[in-house]
């Protein structure tokens, strides 16, 4: 197995709101290996995006990273990203770890043309001398992300592009500085299905071409099966299961993962209704005691209410946080 490029340890992020402290993620730990596609899966509000943003300290007030370490290991170094001062983390963002956000419609500034925005990200990291210089490079970058007619498109404003084209531009901005890690936060949610396929293909292609490590955040199990090498399933701010993608789909161990997979339609099986997980996502202000899944769990035992389960290795490279396995 190749080396760990990113190690997240006991990452905890709280949001201090008027309603109370929202414990968005609690003691999240996982490793990402160089060159793989690591998927973070879970339903809305389970803390996937918060985890991804916390990696480069992108958490805004009222949120705060309470504790934890994120080690980034580029060539022989070992940097704790959460302890870096503002200046240094800025050189990491975009340059080493780049993001693609959920909604291409709003992740581009409406007041600048596309070329400027790509060029700006090059300029920040000193890859070009001026924004104007960067436009030429931007054309090439936009060509690699298969934006049609990039020479003309660089002078277009975001409102002149379609959703798919905008997402191509944001991917272009993401890869513009040749990052080691690309964090794609639900890159396909706002797009229609055919465009989704194109964008996913593009991300795969970029991965092949530049050897970039991808952290994919999604709630779409289909996307996970298509893209990921390893999967971490999150529930209510905690990771409940980490395993290789085939392992997760074939032998899901945690009851939540099992429920999640039963809720995905399978074209090969004929069933009357899809199964659902009973109940709703708990409030993160007062999360359930012990295992956070226990109020909805079909196999609840007494210990579940009292003790917080730790991630244990049940098989090789297959970690589960459950008392009953």
């Amino acid at each position, binding site marked *: 197995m190749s080396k760990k490029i990113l190690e997240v340890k006991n990452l905890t992020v709280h949001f201090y709101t008027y309603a109370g402290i929202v414990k968005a993620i609690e003691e999240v730990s996982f490793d990402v290996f160089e060159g793989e596609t690591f998927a973070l899966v879970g339903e809305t509000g389970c803390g996937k995006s918060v985890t991804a943003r916390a990696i480069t300290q992108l958490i805004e007030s009222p949120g705060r990273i309470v504790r934890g370490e994120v080690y980034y290991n580029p060539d022989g170094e070992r940097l704790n990203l959460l302890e870096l001062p503002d200046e240094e983390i800025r*050189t990491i963002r975009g340059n080493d770890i780049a993001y693609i956000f*959920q909604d291409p419609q709003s992740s*581009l*500034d409406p*007041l600048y043309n596309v070329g400027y925005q790509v060029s700006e990200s090059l300029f*920040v990291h000193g890859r070009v001398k001026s924004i104007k210089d960067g436009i030429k490079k931007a054309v090439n970058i936009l060509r690699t992300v298969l934006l049609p007619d990039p020479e003309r498109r660089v002078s277009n404003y975001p409102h002149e592009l379609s959703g798919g084209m905008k997402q191509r531009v944001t991917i272009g901005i993401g890869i513009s*500085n040749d990052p080691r890690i690309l964090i794609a936060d639900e890159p396909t949610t706002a797009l229609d299905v055919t465009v989704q396929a194109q964008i996913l293909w593009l991300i795969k292609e970029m991965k092949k071409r530049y050897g970039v490590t991808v952290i994919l955040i999604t709630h779409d199990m289909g996307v996970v099966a298509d893209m990921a090498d390893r999967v971490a399933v999150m529930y209510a701010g905690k990771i409940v299961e980490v395993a290789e993608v085939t392992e997760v789909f074939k032998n899901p161990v945690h009851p939540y993962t099992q429920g999640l997979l039963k809720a995905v339609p399978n074209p090969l099986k004929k069933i009357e209704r899809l199964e659902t997980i009973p109940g709703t996502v708990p409030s993160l202000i007062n999360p359930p005691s012990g295992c956070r899944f226990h109020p909805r769990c079909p196999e609840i035992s007494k210990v579940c209410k009292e003790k917080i389960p730790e991630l244990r290795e049940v098989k090789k490279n297959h970690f589960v946080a459950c008392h009953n396995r």
Partner: protein
Amino acid sequence: MSQDEYYRGILDRISDAFIGLFVYLISTIRKGWREKNRSRIAEWKLMFYALNRSPPGVIGLFLVTIFVFLGIFGPLIAPYKYNYFPIFENSKTYLSPPGEFFVLGADHFGRDLLSLLLQGARTSLVISIIVILLGVPAGIILGLIAGYFGGKIDELIMRITDMFLAFPPLILAIAFAAVLPDRISYLINTYPPLQQFLLWLFALERTEGGNLSRLLAVMIAMAVVWWPGYARITRGSTLTEREALYVESARAIGLPSSKIMLRHILPNIIGPILVYVTLDFGTVVLTEAGLSFLGLGATPPIADWGRIVYDGTQFFPNAWWLIIFPGFIVFLDVLGWNLLGDALRDVLDPKLRRSIEFKVKKVKKSKTKDMEIKEVEHE
């Protein structure tokens, strides 16, 4: 209705011609600018069409243009100098009514009121511009910082802003204007270039050097009380804008906060601020006139609208022109800025503007249809 459309057509053509001239001037300096910025030019034209749909806005623009023009060229076209006292040559000019010696009458030094009003236009314009230039950027920067960083910084800045807002601005300005001149006169006297620059700005003669400090004191006093409003609206807009995903992506590519604020947030919230500035120009003019009416700021012989009214009060029932004319001028100036500001609110808001633009296009289409029908009839 058709009469209305006819006038609008004329207005549209005037604004088109104006923009055409402007574009021509730019493209002579920068070759190829016109071809590159075709859509921008079209957008400008549409902005003016939208403005032309609102008669009060057109009146406001007209008044403001006149007052800016008078502010720039007033002292040059004034028939007499502000420091020429005819009373020493002809004692009958003392408070002479309109029409006797001068068109708008004379003050108690026998000075021509028209010339004083023209000179006063410069004083008022320069003061309002400088107050806006000092106060607005300060407010915007503080508001951006408060809104963008949030938390304790936000609390600190906004509570200070609240303190300033809680204080009656006129009284605070009076306090500053009363205390500052001594210190400022020292500053002005030690930096002759500054003095010369200010004299040139106000179109005054060298002998007035000593009176500058009071004018400057008023400007600084007003700037000091002017920023809190801007800090507030900027913070409010920043709060909504910083949640936008493009701000987050800007942070994610590693842009420093200062660049995000100035390059990405500020341009996106500048619309409402510009409207506020336009509305505020009128308020600044009014406040400045009020301060000099209270005896702060301009001192004779420097011409200032508020000061003329103040001097006129002692001769009021008889020399009514000393109060009515400057008062009316101030009224028109403030009205102009307010009407323009109101109309700009519609023009600068893209959503509102679209709805107006669509009306514009519809009218044009129906016109061409009418023409076609007429042509067919001719045939």
